[in-house]
């Protein structure tokens, strides 16, 4: 589903964030991306979401070669990926419902379909009763769940998360991880960048460990 082959990412200041990285995540797999801050976790996720492009090497996602994907096709490509961020990126001037509906509105779904799928998505994250609230009225954990509802509302085959539990206490983090596991159980490929070692060592999923832009030799297969 996600395949990196000899991927390099160099920035203008000649700092090399990724050096010759190769790995593969299977369809329907759930995996963690770990490593110290500055090891290149965020860069790696940005390459998958095409927020940035690799300097060298090949990135294949869902059978599409991102190196060759033209700029104008990026929006359509991104609709296949659900993105979850540490600080949610919710829009604070609109309701929970409207935030979750955004990907469907963009895709041009009909009014009725939007209502149906937004509610299904909010139900899944347990926030159906909060759809008329503004994000600011919700707790941190609830806001993160709204972010997840938005990421999965158009049923993408891939879910990417960047430090989704970064601001949450262990119990809430556990809940969030549960949610990701549920999506994985219905076939979604889930890839989560995190440094929450306490949490992931209790979970049975593969870890991809980055060390200075390379795979750490201790990868657990």
């Amino acid at each position, binding site marked *: 589903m996600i395949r990196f082959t000899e991927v390099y990412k160099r920035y203008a200041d000649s700092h090399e964030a990724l050096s010759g990285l190769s790995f593969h995540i299977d369809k329907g797999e759930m995996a963690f991306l770990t490593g110290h801050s500055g090891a290149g976790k965020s860069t790696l996720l940005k390459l998958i*979401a095409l*927020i940035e492009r690799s300097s060298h090497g090949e990135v294949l996602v869902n059978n599409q070669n991102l190196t060759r994907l033209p700029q104008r096709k990026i929006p359509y490509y*991104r*609709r296949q990926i659900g*993105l979850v961020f540490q600080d949610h990126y*919710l829009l604070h001037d609109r309701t929970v419902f409207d935030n979750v509906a*955004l*990907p469907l509105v963009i895709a041009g*779904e009909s*009014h009725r379909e939007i209502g149906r799928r937004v509610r299904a998505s909010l139900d899944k994250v347990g926030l159906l009763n909060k759809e008329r609230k503004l994000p600011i009225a919700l707790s941190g954990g609830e806001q993160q769940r709204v972010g997840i509802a938005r990421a999965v509302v158009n049923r993408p085959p891939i879910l990417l998360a960047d430090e989704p539990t970064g601001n949450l206490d262990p119990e809430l983090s556990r809940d969030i991880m549960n949610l990701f596991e549920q999506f994985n159980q219905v076939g979604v490929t889930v890839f989560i960048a995190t440094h929450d070692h306490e949490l992931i060592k209790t979970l049975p999923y593969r870890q991809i460990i980055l060390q200075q832009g390379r795979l750490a030799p201790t990868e657990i297969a």
Partner: protein
Amino acid sequence: MKFNNFNAKTYLLRHAQVMLFSLGQLWRQPIASVMTVLVIGIALALPAGLYVLLQNLNQVSEQWDDASKISLFLQQDLSDEQARKFSQNIKQWPEINNTHYQSAQTSLEEFRQLSGLGELLDSLPSNPLPAVIIVIPSNNNLRPDAIGSLLARLDNLAEVELAQLDMEWLQRLRSISQTSQRGLTILAILLSLSVLLVIGNTIRLAILNRQAEIKVIKLVGGTNTFIRRPFLYTGFWYGILGGFFAWATLLIALGLLTGPINHLALLYNSQFIFHWFAGQMFVSLILIGMSLGVFGAWLAVGRHLNAIEPR
């Protein structure tokens, strides 16, 4: 169908929603919106008002075209019969449509009646007034330069003491009007440009205000077209409202002018009636405002959209 869930009805509905949404946004910031609309309206009203005045000026000068006659004052020593014959002669010229001969005697009678100086005139030993031929040029010779050369030719004839174009000031009016027309074009271009800049700047601020939203939309797969749409509709509304305000301004300003202008025309015994084509103006101003609005927004969004990328 390019997209499997693309649906024409949904698409149109979405456009209608965005259109109302952007109108609602203007409504939520009434003071800023009204100021922008006023600036656009005034910028549109100025050239439109000048255009109306110029059109009316042209109408006046066209009306007087019929009256651009040449008066030939004949030599005193010409006999009545010679003068009549001369009048018949020049009538054959292709440049001349008609001539109207008025003998020295008739001129005297006319003057006596108009001036009321009868007794004084009677005391003169001879008639001091010359015979006059009124020359009406052919229609295709009404251009100022053509009429000028005809005037010169007539003036050079031996029988003619003096050839005078009754309406020399008409030429001046014409060239003033032509100059003003060019000035108006320049003014209209400059003010349209300022409308573009005002709308562009307003949209630029709107984009900066919604930077976070644009980033999120890009992250969840929004195309540039999708992001651009509400801003284009914002420009659309500014343009339409500005056009409407310009029209209302003209309605009031020209309404105040109509009375005095028509009174002035009446004093000149003119058939002239001040027109300002209210209906036509309304449609033009709305359309021009709308086009400038959308175009200005397009320019602004194009410039700033690519600068906002998720990092």
